[in-house]
């Protein structure tokens, strides 16, 4: 079912708040993986605020849908989502990155409720999520498994082993997202080591492929629901995104994979996010009138 106008508006609002939080965390903590945290916002919002069977008050309930952040460095962005879900307090967020604290760059699933696997090294979480989906099927658990990988992560051979296995085992209750922002630390993916045609590759591996605007929650929700219709193959949603989305001076910049902001740039980043949100609302207003 497509999102109602009200639902859509809610997800847009939440996405905005999460982007603001991401900048706050980066500033407070001193530095962070800001580019990739910003590009994945709508993916996480469409899952945690709509599609996932997940109760933030009971993040370890047995029948919860699982979400594995295979691109573990997106953890800062996930913390912003958890904070918006009131799973983390402002006091906890303020300590992000503190030596010895459980919230930091790559989180430990034994220490943070909501984190399903301790990732950070690329190419691991996807295979882990394949195992989870298989375990769920074998034990007839009702829940769904979602996984988010980065496009750069697709360079890792283990990704293709996982992709082969997921299709080989017919894991239809596994949905993979690819944060396709087309950038890695060294620059554009297509210049470094071309991944395209990425969708065709997954199709050849036996997956159902969706190719959507990764910042349009309506398109993401539609793809998630489409994936639910599959009976014998896993689905991959290639979310076409912009690294650093929301902050004009960060967008499409490889260098903003990781960085820090002084107080002046912090204000500029926040203002940019606000301006984009206002423009988005104006466009929605115009579209509805």
């Amino acid at each position, binding site marked *: 079912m497509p999102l109602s106008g009200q639902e859509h508006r809610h997800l847009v609002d939440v996405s905005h708040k999460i982007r603001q939080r991401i900048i706050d965390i980066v500033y407070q903590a001193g530095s962070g993986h800001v580019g990739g945290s910003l590009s994945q916002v709508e993916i996480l919002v469409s899952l945690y605020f709509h599609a996932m069977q997940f109760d933030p008050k009971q993040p370890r309930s047995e029948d919860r849908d699982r979400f594995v952040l295979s691109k573990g460095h997106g953890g800062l962005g996930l913390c912003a989502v958890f904070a918006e879900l009131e799973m983390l307090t402002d006091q906890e967020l303020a300590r992000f990155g503190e030596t010895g604290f459980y919230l930091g760059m*790559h989180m430990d699933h034994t220490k943070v409720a909501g984190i399903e696997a301790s990732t950070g090294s690329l190419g691991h979480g996807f295979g882990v999520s394949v195992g989870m989906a298989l375990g769920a099927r074998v034990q007839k658990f009702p829940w769904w498994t979602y996984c988010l990988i980065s496009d750069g992560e697709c*360079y890792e051979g283990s990704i293709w082993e996982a992709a082969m296995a997921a299709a080989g085992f017919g894991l239809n209750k596994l949905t993979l997202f690819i944060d396709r922002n087309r950038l*890695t630390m060294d620059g554009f993916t297509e210049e470094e080591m071309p991944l395209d045609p990425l969708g065709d590759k997954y199709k050849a591996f036996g997956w159902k492929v969706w190719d959507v605007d990764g910042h349009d929650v309506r398109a993401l929700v539609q793809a998630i629901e489409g994936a639910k219709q599959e009976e014998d193959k896993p689905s991959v949603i290639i979310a076409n995104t912009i690294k650093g989305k929301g902050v004009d001076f960060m967008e499409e910049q*490889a*260098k903003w994979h990781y960085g820090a*902001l002084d107080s002046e740039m912090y204000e500029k980043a926040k203002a940019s996010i606000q301006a984009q949100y206002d423009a988005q609302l104006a466009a929605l207003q115009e579209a509805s009138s």
Partner: protein
Amino acid sequence: MKKVQGFTWTVEDTNLITYHEIYGDVLVELGQQDERIVCLTADLANTTKIGRFKEAFPERFFNVGIAEQNMVAMASGLAATGLKPVISTYAIFATLRAAEFIRTDIAYNQRDVTIIGTLSGVSFGQGGATHHAQEDLALMRSIPNMLVLAPCDGYEAAKAVRAAVASSSPAYIRIARSVEHYVHKDQDFAWTLGKASLLKEGSDITVIACGITVYHALSAAERAQADGVSVRVLNMHTLKPLDHEAVLQALTETRRIVTVEDHSIVGGLGSAVAEVIASSGKGCAFRKLAHPDRFSGMGYPDDLIHDIGIDDEGILKTISELMKVDITVDDDWQDES
């Protein structure tokens, strides 16, 4: 007008603050002399010094994307055609991710490949356990035919790279994050592959260190010296082949040995030295300072190494305990003005 608080920086700026790390320049120099040298990275051309080689010889530089196993396998293939590949990526991924490929495709196949592992130990503190390399020395040292080096600073890393490339042997060189203090003032110092460097003579106790802990060992030794404890400091820059003679000399001449490393207590420098001591049949007071057998946490690297006692304070404390001497702490807290 309100003043700006804090600093703005991105991953690009890491190269700016590490210009003393010169192995990239050395690779360019070697590349000019020998056109067989080629370099590979796994998406880290911009943030490790191997990018210098890319700037100088773009046609001899290969960025394979984030694919370490394939990178090592490809290096083996390149070496098979007569080229001399040098690889650089984070130590954890260079060694553990590509472990079998190093062992079989490089070492077993006897390929002339040099692997530079950066961010070793906990030098990428904030990355947490997934990005810490605590096992690389143990693993690399257990592979036949491997040269294993752990230089203490950028100037020594430059020498290590030269030696590794010249050796035509499979080689692994572990470095840290390149902001650490240097031990040497320039590249002009005596250095021999496989021979520990005697950085400070001493007769009461020996500290054997490698990598970033060498600076800390020297600091602690100098402090102890001020209180009359004569500490010998050995820089064991080559873990394999280990300088047995230097260890045996320390054993017989000082009878107390402390090893220090930013590595697991299992299998690294300490274990290598312990093997020599045990085989000698001679007695010795011995302590291994290293990461305990548990995964390291997330945090600033300098705090992580302090917490496990491998910084100069920790080494000094250990010297004090072994010598049964209370090394005077500087209790002068009066501001000088």
